[in-house]
C-alpha cells in the first residue's frame, strides 16, 4: 500500500510532494512508536482543496445555529448569503422561547464606498434597524475579510450597541483569511461564547445535568440524542449549538458533565469550562450502535448511580430491540463492502461506527480541518508546534471562578475512572483504524481521484463538492455534512435511518444501467439479407 500511495503523490511538483507526503498515513497499529501526521497547516495555493475559511467555521458552524440572536454578517453580501440555510442545523421554538431567527439572513452588504470610508457607520445603522424591526434580545456580528483589512472596530460597535439598546451584542472577528481552515473560526467562536455568554445565567439544574457540546442538530441529530438522554433521566442544560440559544448556553456552567460530540469544533469550551468551573468533559459518540451504547454506559459510570445505570441498560435494550431488526435487514445488503470518507473534523471518525454496524470496513478516512490531536489523540498536544497562523488566534487565559468552581468527582474517583472512560481525553482517529487503511489530512481533488482508483471503495462519503465527481466515476457518494437532506443519523433511530439510506444507495437500479447495453454485447451481428435469386 505504501508504494501505491507514493506513486500517487510522486506526480506532484517537488514542493507539493514534500508537503503532501506528511499528511498521509498508512495505518500500522503494530508500529513501535505512535504514527504521526501533519495537520492544520496552510493549504497549498492552487490545490483544489475542500477547505473553507475562518468565517465558515465561526458563523457557519458554531454560532450559526444559535436561534435567539440576530446574526449580522458584516461585509459584502456573499458570506452571509452562502451561510444562510445551507447547513441543515434545524431549530424550532421550544416551550417558553420567543425568538428563532434562523430563517433570516442579515448582512450589511458593504458597498465600494463603505470599503473606502469604513463600514462602522453602516453596521451601527444595521443594528438600529434590526432592533427596530425584530426587537431581539441578542445580536451577533461576524466579520468578513475586508472588514479586518479596513480596520472596522466591531467590538467597539458591539459595546456601543449594548449600551444603546440594552441587549447582548457579541462581536466575532472571524475574517476569512485568519488561520488555515474553518478551525480558526471554531476557536474564535468558542472564545467569545466563553467570555460573554457561558456563566452569565443563574438557572437551577439537577444532579444528572449535562451539556451536549459540538452537536449542531444537522437533520435533527440533537433531537434524537436528547430524546435518548431524557428517556434515561438526564437533564440537557444546553446544546452547543444545535437548536441552541444564548438563553440556554449562559447556564452551561451549571451542568455537571459536558458531553463532547464534535471534539474539533468545541474542545476549547470543554477545556475552558473544566478549568473555570471544574466540570469534567466526556468524549462521546452518539453515531453508530457501538458508539451510542458505549457513550451511554460511560455516562452512567461517571454519575455512578445504580438506578441510573439500570435505567441506561433498560433504555439500551429497549432501543436496540426496535432498531436492530431494521439494521440487520440492511446489513445483509451492505456486509463486506468498503467505505471511504472525507469529512470535517469528527465525522470521518464517528461514521466508521455506523459502517461497522453494517459490516462495512473503512479503507480511507480523512479530515478537512483537523489538528494532530484529532488524529493522534491528546497525548500529542504538548508536541504541537505553534506557527505563524495558529499564533494569530487568541488562546484565552482561564482561571478558576472563585464563586462557581466546584468538583463533581472526588480526586480519588477521578483517578480511578480516567483509565476506564475518555474523561477529559480524546484518543483520536488513527487508533480505531485497521492496519493498511489510509488516513489523509486535507485531501484534494487529485488524491480523491487517485485513491478511488486504487481502493475502489463501494461508497465515498464527503460533501457536495466531492459528491458529483465521485458519481461520475460510477461510485455512490453520500454527503455526510448534510446527509443528502435526510437524517437524523445520530442515536438509535438515526443508525437505522443511515442503514436504510446506505442500502438504498447501494441497490439503486440505476447503477446497473450506467453502461448502455450496446457497449456490453457485440452488436455487429450478421443481418438477414434477402437472397437475390
Amino acid at each position, binding site marked *: 500500500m505504501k508504494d501505491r500511495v507514493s506513486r500517487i503523490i510522486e506526480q506532484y511538483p517537488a514542493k507539493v510532494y514534500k508537503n503532501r507526503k506528511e499528511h498521509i498515513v498508512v495505518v500500522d497499529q503494530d508500529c513501535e512508536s505512535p504514527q504521526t501526521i501533519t495537520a492544520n497547516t496552510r493549504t497549498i495555493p492552487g490545490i483544489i482543496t475542500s477547505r473553507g475559511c475562518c468565517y465558515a467555521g465561526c458563523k457557519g458552524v458554531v454560532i450559526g445555529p444559535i436561534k435567539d440572536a440576530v446574526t449580522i454578517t458584516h461585509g459584502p453580501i456573499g458570506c452571509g448569503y452562502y451561510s444562510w440555510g445551507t447547513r441543515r442545523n434545524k431549530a424550532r421554538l421550544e416551550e417558553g422561547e420567543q425568538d428563532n431567527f434562523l430563517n433570516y439572513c442579515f*448582512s450589511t452588504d458593504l458597498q465600494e464606498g463603505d470599503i473606502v470610508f469604513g463600514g462602522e457607520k453602516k*453596521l451601527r445603522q444595521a443594528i438600529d434597524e434590526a432592533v427596530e424591526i425584530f426587537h431581539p434580545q441578542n445580536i451577533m456580528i461576524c466579520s468578513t475579510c475586508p472588514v479586518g*483589512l479596513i480596520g472596522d472596530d466591531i467590538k467597539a460597535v458591539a459595546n456601543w450597541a449594548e449600551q444603546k439598546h440594552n441587549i447582548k451584542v457579541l462581536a466575532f472577528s472571524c475574517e476569512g483569511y485568519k488561520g488555515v481552515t474553518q478551525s480558526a473560526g471554531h476557536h474564535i467562536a468558542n472564545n467569545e461564547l466563553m467570555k460573554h455568554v457561558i456563566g452569565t445565567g443563574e438557572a437551577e439544574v439537577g444532579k444528572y445535568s449535562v451539556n451536549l457540546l459540538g452537536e449542531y442538530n444537522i437533520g435533527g441529530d440533537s433531537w434524537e440524542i436528547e430524546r435518548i438522554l431524557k428517556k434515561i433521566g438526564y437533564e440537557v442544560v444546553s446544546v452547543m449549538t444545535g437548536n441552541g440559544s444564548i438563553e440556554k448556553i449562559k447556564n452551561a456552567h451549571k451542568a455537571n458533565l459536558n458531553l463532547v460530540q464534535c471534539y474539533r469544533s468545541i474542545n476549547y469550551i470543554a477545556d475552558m469550562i473544566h478549568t473555570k468551573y471544574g466540570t469534567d468533559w466526556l468524549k462521546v459518540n452518539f453515531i453508530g450502535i457501538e458508539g451510542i451504547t458505549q457513550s451511554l454506559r460511560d455516562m452512567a459510570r461517571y454519575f455512578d448511580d445504580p438506578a441510573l445505570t439500570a435505567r441506561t441498560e433498560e433504555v439500551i435494550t429497549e432501543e436496540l430491540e426496535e432498531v436492530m431488526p431494521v439494521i440487520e435487514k440492511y446489513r445483509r445488503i451492505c456486509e463486506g463492502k468498503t467505505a471511504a470518507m472525507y469529512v470535517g473534523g469528527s465525522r470521518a471518525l464517528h461514521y466508521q461506527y455506523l459502517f461497522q454496524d453494517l459490516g462495512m470496513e473503512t479503507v480511507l478516512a480523512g479530515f478537512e480541518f483537523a489538528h494532530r490531536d484529532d488524529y493522534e489523540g491528546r497525548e500529542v498536544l504538548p508536541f504541537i508546534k505553534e506557527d505563524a497562523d495558529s499564533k494569530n488566534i487568541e488562546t484565552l487565559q482561564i482561571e478558576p471562578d472563585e464563586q462557581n468552581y466546584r468538583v463533581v468527582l472526588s480526586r480519588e474517583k477521578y483517578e480511578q475512572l480516567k483509565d476506564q472512560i475518555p474523561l477529559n481525553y480524546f484518543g483520536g482517529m488513527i487508533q480505531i483504524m485497521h492496519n493498511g487503511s489510509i488516513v489523509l489530512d486535507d485531501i484534494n481533488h487529485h488524491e480523491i481521484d487517485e485513491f478511488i482508483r486504487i481502493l475502489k471503495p463501494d461508497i465515498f462519503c464527503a460533501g457536495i463538492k466531492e459528491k458529483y465527481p465521485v458519481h*461520475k466515476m460510477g461510485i455512490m457518494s453520500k454527503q455526510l455534512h448534510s446527509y443528502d437532506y435526510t437524517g437524523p443519523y445520530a442515536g438509535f433511530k438515526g443508525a437505522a435511518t443511515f442503514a436504510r439510506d446506505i442500502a438504498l444507495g447501494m441497490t439503486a437500479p440505476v447503477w446497473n444501467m450506467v453502461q448502455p447495453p450496446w457497449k456490453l454485447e457485440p452488436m455487429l451481428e450478421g443481418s438477414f439479407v434477402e437472397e437475390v435469386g
Partner: protein
Amino acid sequence: MLDRTPAEYIERKGIVINPAKTCQPIGAMYASLGIHGCLPHSHGSQGCCSYHRMHLSRHFRDPVMASTSSFTEGAAVFGGGANLKTAIKNIFSIYNPDIIAVHTTCLSETIGDDIPTYINQSEIPAGKVVIHANTPSYVGSHVTGFSNMVKAMVKYLSVKDGKPNNKVNIIPGFVNPGDMREIKRIMKVLKIEYIMFPDTSGVLDAPLTGKYEMYPSGGARIEDIRDAGNSMATVALGSFASADGAEELRKKAKVHPVILNTPIGIKGTDDFLMALSRLTSKEIPEELEEERGQVIDIMVDLHDQYQGQKVAIFGDPDVVIALTGFVLEMGMIPQFVLTGTPGEAFERQVDHMLKDAGVEGKVKAAGDLFTLQQWIKESPVDLLIGTSYGKFIARAEDIPLVRVGFPILDRGVHSYMPVVGYRGAMRLIEMISNALLERQDRDALDEDLELIM
C-alpha cells in the same frame, strides 16, 4: 415560517435581510466553466472558492472544479502575489487545464493586488493561457461577476485578424446549460454559423458514463473565442450579463453588437429570431414557425387558467425582465418585480413595460426578499416566480411558487430544461398553469374538485 416579518414597511439603509443576490465571484466562476478545458481560480481566502463551488454544485448537481489562492493572514498583509504565482504553477502541473480564468474577491481587491502583473510574472507553459477578471464582491452582484468574466474573455482572447468568418457571436447570459443547448439548437435550425461563449452545456450537464472527466467535452473553445473578433455581429442576450462583453468586442474588433432581452416568451423569442434573420438575411424556417404556432395554440387553450392572476417575480435582472414580458403576454399581472442586483436600468425597463401594459406594480432593483415579503403581506399575489429562496415566502404567505432562475437548490432536472425559445415558453406555461391548478385542486371542496380543467 418567517413569522417575524412585520407587515409595516420600515425604510432600511443599513441592513439587507434575506438577499436576492450574491457576490460577483460566483458569476465569474460560472462563466469560466463555460470555456472548454478551463479551471476557474479564485484569488482570495479559500472559503470563497468553497462557498461558490458548493452553491454551483447544488444548483447543477454536477462537478464544479475550481482552485484557490488560499490566502492566510500573511498574504492578506503582504499581498497575494506569491500565492497566485505558486497557484498557477501548481495548477498547470497537477490539473493541466488549457486555460486558467482568475477572478478576484473582496479580499484581494481591498488590498489592491495587481493581477495582470502577477500573471506576467508567472510560469505559464507554452500553449496555455491565463486570463483574469476583477470581481470585487462589494460591487454589483453575481450577475456583474458573470459579465466581467465574459468581458475578460474578449479582452484576453478575441482578435480581429482580417478574415471574416461569417459567424454570429452569441453571449447567452447567466442562464442554464439547458437554455444554452436550446439556443444552439435554434441556431442550427436557422442554419446560422455561430460562436457561443460562455457555453456551459456539456460541462455542467455532462453525462454519467462511469469515467470522470475533469474537463468534460462541452464549453466554448479558446480558438472560437479568439475567432469571435472576426464575426459579423454579437448577439448579447440580457443586457446585465452580456452587453459589456458585446461592447468590448465592438471596441476591440469592431464587431457589431445587438443587445436583446433574454429570449423568454413569444416576443422575446420573436425578437431574437428576427434579429438573427436580419443580420444574416436568412429566412426563419418553417420548423420554428411551427413551434411558435404550438405555443400560441396552447396559450389560446389555457389562457383562462392564468389570465388576470397576480404574480410576484424575483431573481436576476435579465431573466426577471424577460419573464415579466412573458407573463404580460400571458395576460397575468406582474404586481411585484424585484431583483437583488443593483441597476436603475432594471427599474426603468420594467416600469416602462408595466406602464405600457397598464399594470400598476412595484418594481425594485437592489431589493431583498424581506421587502418582497412585506409587499406581498400588504397586497397578496396568486403566484410567486423565482428561485428556491422563494419557498419560505411561499409557505409563510401560502402562495404557490414556480421555480425559475438561479439558484434552484431543492429540485432537480431544471438545469437541463430550457426556459428560452418557444419550447421554453411552452415549459413555462406548463409550470405556471400547473402550479395554479394544483393550488385550486388543493383548496377545492369535494363537490368542487374538477376532473376536467
